[in-house]
């Protein structure tokens, strides 16, 4: 009997503890949803009263911040296209061709990629970009991101392509397709779920990144949202909470929309292997 009682209280204790942890993590999110609609929002949590959109009006009038969202989109989409296309072709080649030591190539690239996207390489990257005269261009940001993200993307995709039987393309080629046709008709659609994962991951990485655009860009009209968010700090360095909250909500929307779109359109799943 005491044993069951002990289990009973242990169960209650566990539930209370997890509920507390849940609340602890939910609080910032609740604040994040309520604060943008509260014209008197502070760092404390409060239900908006009255519920208003004045914060958004002010944010929409900030041209620098609005252009920031657009720039983020340009840089993210540009980077994603490069990473998606580059990683797909490279990892397909790495997976299907009999290059000796291809695993080593991937691991070495992976090792360097963590250096490239890390802050340790910021000075050399700045010097290189400066040397080729691309400082203060969106292209520079896109290229650096693509270079930094490609190895990891290739690593993920190669693993994925390795798991797809070669007989798909082989049967297409025997049926009369050229290697290029076999790739586009058969291999690419089968790899697509893997590409979607890589694309979403790359988009989120670039969208949320601060350091690289901050260092490579000079003029304010090219700054992405992650940098432009600083325009909602007063000159003394204190955040204008109301506008910051509204802008943050806008800033996070594309990522949320992307997730919803991808999971609706493609689903984060792989084609179930055909049961033989």
């Amino acid at each position, binding site marked *: 009997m005491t044993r069951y009682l002990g289990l009973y209280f242990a169960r209650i204790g566990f539930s209370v503890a997890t509920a507390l942890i849940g609340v602890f993590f939910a609080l910032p999110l609740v604040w994040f949803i309520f604060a943008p609609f509260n014209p008197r929002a502070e760092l404390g949590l409060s239900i908006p009263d009255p519920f208003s959109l004045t914060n958004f009006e002010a944010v929409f009038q900030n041209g620098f911040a609005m252009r920031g969202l657009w720039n983020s989109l340009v840089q993210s989409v540009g980077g994603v296209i490069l990473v998606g296309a580059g990683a797909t072709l490279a990892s397909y080649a790495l997976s299907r061709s009999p290059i000796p030591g291809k695993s080593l190539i991937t691991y070495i690239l992976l090792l360097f990629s963590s250096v490239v996207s890390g802050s340790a390489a910021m000075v050399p990257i700045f010097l290189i970009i400066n040397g080729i005269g691309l400082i203060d261009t969106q292209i520079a940001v896109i290229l650096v991101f693509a270079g930094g993200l490609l190895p990891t993307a290739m690593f993920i995709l190669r693993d994925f392509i390795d798991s797809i039987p070669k007989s798909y393309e082989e*049967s297409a*080629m025997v*049926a009369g*397709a050229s290697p290029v046709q076999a790739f586009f008709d058969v291999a690419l659609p089968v790899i697509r779920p893997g590409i979607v994962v890589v694309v979403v991951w790359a988009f989120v990485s670039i969208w949320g990144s601060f350091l690289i655009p901050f260092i490579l860009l000079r003029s304010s009209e090219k700054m992405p949202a992650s940098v432009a968010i600083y325009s909602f700090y007063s000159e003394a360095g204190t955040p204008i909470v109301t506008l910051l909250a509204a802008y943050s909500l806008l800033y996070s929307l594309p990522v949320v929309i992307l997730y919803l779109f991808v999971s609706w359109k493609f689903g984060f799943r792989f084609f179930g292997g*055909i049961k033989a």
Partner: protein
Amino acid sequence: MASIRFKGITKKFGEFVAVSDLNLEMNDGEFVCLLGPSGCGKTTTLRMIAGLETPTSGQLLIGDRDVTFLHPKDRKISMVFQDYALYPHMNLADNIAYPLKVRGEAEAKRHARAREVADVLKIGHLMERMPSQISGGQQQRTSLARALVYPSEVYLFDEPLSNLDAKLRLEARGFLNHLQRDIGMTAVYVTHDQAEAMALATRVAVMDAGKVVQYAPPMEVYRRPATTFVANFVGSPPMNLLPVEAMIADGALHLEADRVSVAPLPVSRAVAAALKGSSKLTLGVRPEHLSIARGGEANAITGQLFANENMGPEKLVTLERDDAARFTARIFTDEVIALEATVTLGFASEHIHLFDPAGARLPMDGEPA
């Protein structure tokens, strides 16, 4: 349709020789089975015909064309893969019509043709389904339909039935045999299942370690296996083999082994030649040629009863000898066989096969070598 000729083809993967100096001719309209255990080079041979592997040396011809280095798409071939390789993102209609699509056929026309073939294979009502929504047998027929949807010179099959369960496999095998009679295609069929090879082939190429050991019609392979390897591979269960001491006395061949009695046999030229340097031969008898001895048999072998398996129309009686060698008899009766612990099996002299110490068949006089 066209013939296929291998001229001294060798394929190496690094140091490993998968196929070694292969010379093989397959006639127009022939159904050739490449039969052998895994790793014997049969799939590599097939993939070289398809162009999915390139020979290390030698020449390969389809009809009169040298296709040794030709891309698969230009070879006018069809292939059915072991895993079917159905495209998971296309429905059955698009899967079957794919070869026509890459040939630039209009959608309405190619779907009509796909439907035609699918109807013959009884999957016409599934055209809108995806490959993952149909059964294994239907997937197998879909991949077959895709191979048949356009006219090819050569049809290649890479163990197409090995992923089916036993009942479906028999059904599909019968259908393939019917298809071969119907359209008389030139086909190369890889299998490790000797029953499939026997049932389908007009000629069987038995392969071992990258070489063709015997290339002959199925009944020839069954009746006169060229080596102990073939004897041991073809037949279910395979041929019983037993090492024996041989000597020639009074113009007759005497075979001796422990608890075996064999009536003297005529001495053929091949046997006489084989016994010049050695006295060891291998005796072979097929299980279906053995029966429970009732006394008075010309030839008999004795051992301890090992197993007595009831298969329905037949019984498999296996005896084990002191050296752990086993002899299996396949007895066609639906009556229960009561057996003692010691069993003697008898066999007729005409069913004896002899092999030299290297494993090569020793033909009787008058028998084609």
